[in-house]
């Protein structure tokens, strides 16, 4: 999406996307969404970097834990093997019913200097609370499970899950960098 030519003249934007359930899509889609926010000239590059990391974490969770229903313990166990086991499981599930036709829906709006993303997967929902509550200590050398905590503490200003656990809303507040 190319808004560079006129993004600076807009006051708000609202976009709905339906994205295929692939990790490969996560980086590209997050880059394009952050480029739109950048075009509005609201956010410093440092904030944009953190916003993209937050989007990557939440979208990747939607793919892996939401639509593909891979539990955190399974992921950690397979990653510990330091081989292709985890990638193989992702590929396997992506070709299996009921996972293979699922999508990620993204509703993005930018208004009043706030970038709001509502990310919904088609899985049964998962217990996000234990990842929020997880407190990393100096003994925590796990291979996964940091995404939600990093997003809520370091990357975005607000993060909220729906009760089912398959929809996340993240909000990034941006400073006014231009006069309108």
């Amino acid at each position, binding site marked *: 999406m190319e808004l560079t030519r006129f993004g600076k003249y807009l006051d708000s934007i609202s976009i709905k996307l339906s994205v295929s359930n692939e*990790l*490969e899509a*996560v*980086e590209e889609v997050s880059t394009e969404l952050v480029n739109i926010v950048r075009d509005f000239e609201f956010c410093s590059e*440092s904030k944009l*970097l*953190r916003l*993209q*990391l937050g989007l*990557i*974490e939440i979208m*990747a969770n939607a793919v892996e834990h939401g639509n593909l229903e891979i539990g955190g313990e399974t992921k950690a166990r397979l*990653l*510990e093997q*330091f081989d292709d086991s985890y*990638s193989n499981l992702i590929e396997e599930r992506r070709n299996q019913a009921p996972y293979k036709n699922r999508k990620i829906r993204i509703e993005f709006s930018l208004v009043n200097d706030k970038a709001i993303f509502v990310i919904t997967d088609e899985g049964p929902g998962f217990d996000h609370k234990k990842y929020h509550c997880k407190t*990393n*200590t*100096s003994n*925590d*050398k*796990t*291979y*996964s*499970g*940091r*995404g939600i905590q*990093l997003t809520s*503490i*370091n990357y975005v200003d607000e993060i909220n899950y729906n009760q089912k656990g398959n929809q996340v809303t993240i909000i990034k507040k941006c400073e006014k960098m231009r006069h309108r």
Partner: protein
Amino acid sequence: MEIIRDKKNDIEIIRLSGNLALAGVKEAKSNIKPIIEDPSVKKIIINMKGVKLLDSSGIGFLVASTKAAQKREANLALCNCSDDIMDIFKSTHLDNYLNLYDNEENAVSNI
């Protein structure tokens, strides 16, 4: 992800550029894992100077690489991490676990 391999004396140096996230992690893993598992290599430095984005899968890869090196009594160090990446290591308390150096020269002298 651009991966450049170099060698200084007995030290394997891997210079990374790009995003250490998602697909970049897969690419880094397939290139770096054989070096980490090579029994003749005892010292490895990953130069992070060109890494802009580091997501949780990239963090997991760095932890796994460090553990795999330790398991066979090799040393793995990271250098030239950006301030944003250092913030992530600090907030996850990994700055106390990973072998971090400001620059490649210091890493080569001290690993």
